[in-house]
């Protein structure tokens, strides 16, 4: 379903090149739950940015459903991105929209009917426990609430793939467990999940496939992996 083929990404910082990813290859099957672990700066976020076509790889290809995503024309990108739900590390909620509107936006973009939007948003808000924060703006939410709003936005349109970049970074253990349970449940319903994290407990309790990155290289790729860096 998703295939990373010899992906390298080099950033230019002044005159010094910084290698974020170096010759990374792996495949993700439909319905798989893959965790990508590694220290900060290991290349997790870069990997997700490349998959969203937010950035272009320096070398290699990423193929999604037999389409090279970096060959997609700019005006076709929105359609591709609607198949993916992303929980950004920095949430990226729209500051001028309420929690409700932020989540509804993804559905509006797809052209869903008003009735469907009302229905789905209320359901997802309930799922992440933000029903009473629906009319708050992002700046009025706590870190954990923002994170849950970001998760709700990534889920609401039932995408084929969910990318979650440190989705539990700001959550207490209680909410962390809930969110991971939620991701597992969505995965069981058939959605492919790619989770980037450095939370040891999550990885060890999941008992799913783990890809370990170190300095931009894959050093381990195990079914039922454990957190070992």
């Amino acid at each position: 379903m998703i295939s990373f083929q010899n992906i390298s990404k080099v950033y230019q910082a002044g005159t010094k090149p910084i290698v974020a990813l170096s010759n990374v290859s792996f495949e993700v099957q439909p319905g798989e739950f893959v965790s990508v672990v590694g220290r900060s700066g290991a290349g997790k976020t870069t990997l997700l940015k490349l998959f969203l076509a937010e950035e272009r790889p320096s070398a290699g290809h990423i193929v999604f459903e037999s389409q090279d995503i970096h060959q997609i024309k700019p005006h076709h990108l929105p359609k591709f991105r609607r198949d993916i739900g992303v929980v950004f590390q920095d949430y990226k909620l729209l500051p001028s929209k309420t929690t409700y509107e932020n989540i509804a936006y993804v559905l509006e973009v797809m052209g869903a009917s008003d009735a469907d939007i009302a229905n789905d948003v209320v359901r997802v808000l309930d799922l992440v426990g933000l029903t009473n924060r629906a009319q708050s703006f992002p700046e009025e939410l706590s870190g954990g609430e923002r994170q849950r709003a970001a998760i709700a936005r990534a889920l609401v349109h039932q995408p084929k793939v969910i990318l979650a970049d440190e989705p539990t970074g700001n959550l207490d253990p209680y909410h962390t467990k809930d969110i991971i349970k939620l991701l597992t449940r969505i995965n069981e319903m058939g959605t492919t999940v790619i989770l980037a994290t450095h939370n040891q407990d999550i990885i060890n309790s999941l008992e799913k496939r783990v890809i370990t990155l170190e300095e931009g290289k894959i050093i381990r790729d195990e079914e039922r992996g454990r957190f070992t860096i």
Partner: protein
Amino acid sequence: MNASLKRVIKSGWQGFRRNSGLSLATVFIMIMAISLVTALFLLQKTSNHLVATLSEKVDMAVYFAEEPSLDEITTIQAELTSLPEVKNLEYISKEDALAKFVDRHQGEEVIMDSLEEVGGNPLLSSLNIKAFEATQYAAISSFIDSSSFKSIIAKVDYNEKKPAIDKLFSLTSTISNTGIALSIVLAIVAVLIAFNTVRIAIYNSRDEIETMRLVGASNWFIRGPFLVQGMIGGLLAVLITFLVFTAALWFLSPKIDIVVPGLHLFSYFFGSFLMVIILQLAAGVGLGAVASWLAMRKYLKV
């Protein structure tokens, strides 16, 4: 209205309302720009009117050495009327000239006394000539100089008035040229300022625009609300400017009419209501929309 357009408009209105501080700043700048355009429009009307009034006042007179016979007058009038430059002729006889003179200097004893001293009628009969345009007097003057009736003419006052007329017309043409140059400069400045204000507003939202791209919004769906926001700002600015000008002209127009009689700026403003509104809408809404459009391009590339 389709759902997506409705959402775009709603979202634009929300954006305008929720960023009220920045929105009002933009509206304020736009009011400046639109006022400037409107003021130039009115100024142009005023200067046209002034030039027309002044041109109307310019004329020339041909003084005859002695009272010409009726035949001679008829011939001269016929010859002059045949010139394409001549708009109007008026013959003033010695008696008429005296009557006018006495009428004008009624009560000024020194002048009346000296008139009596001279005795009889010292004034000359004359022919007042009005041309269609002030620049045409030179041609008429040279025609008279070479005409058959030159012998009975004492003087043509065009030669005396010439420096004054030339000065007047170089002045009006300077004013109108300076006006045009100034208008262009001011209009460019106003447009640039309004444009920059919108650009800052969009720059403020650059992260938001990128996020919208990343969650799968099409460019049109992202751009739409910002365009609507810019257009609401423009519309509001037009409305306010229009009200301000209406009020200002309502109070000022009678006073302006004293200085420049017959201008009637207020009725002109309302007479060209449609023209004014179109001009202002073009300036306001067009500016808002175009500025948003251009400013956004950069952030839509993600």
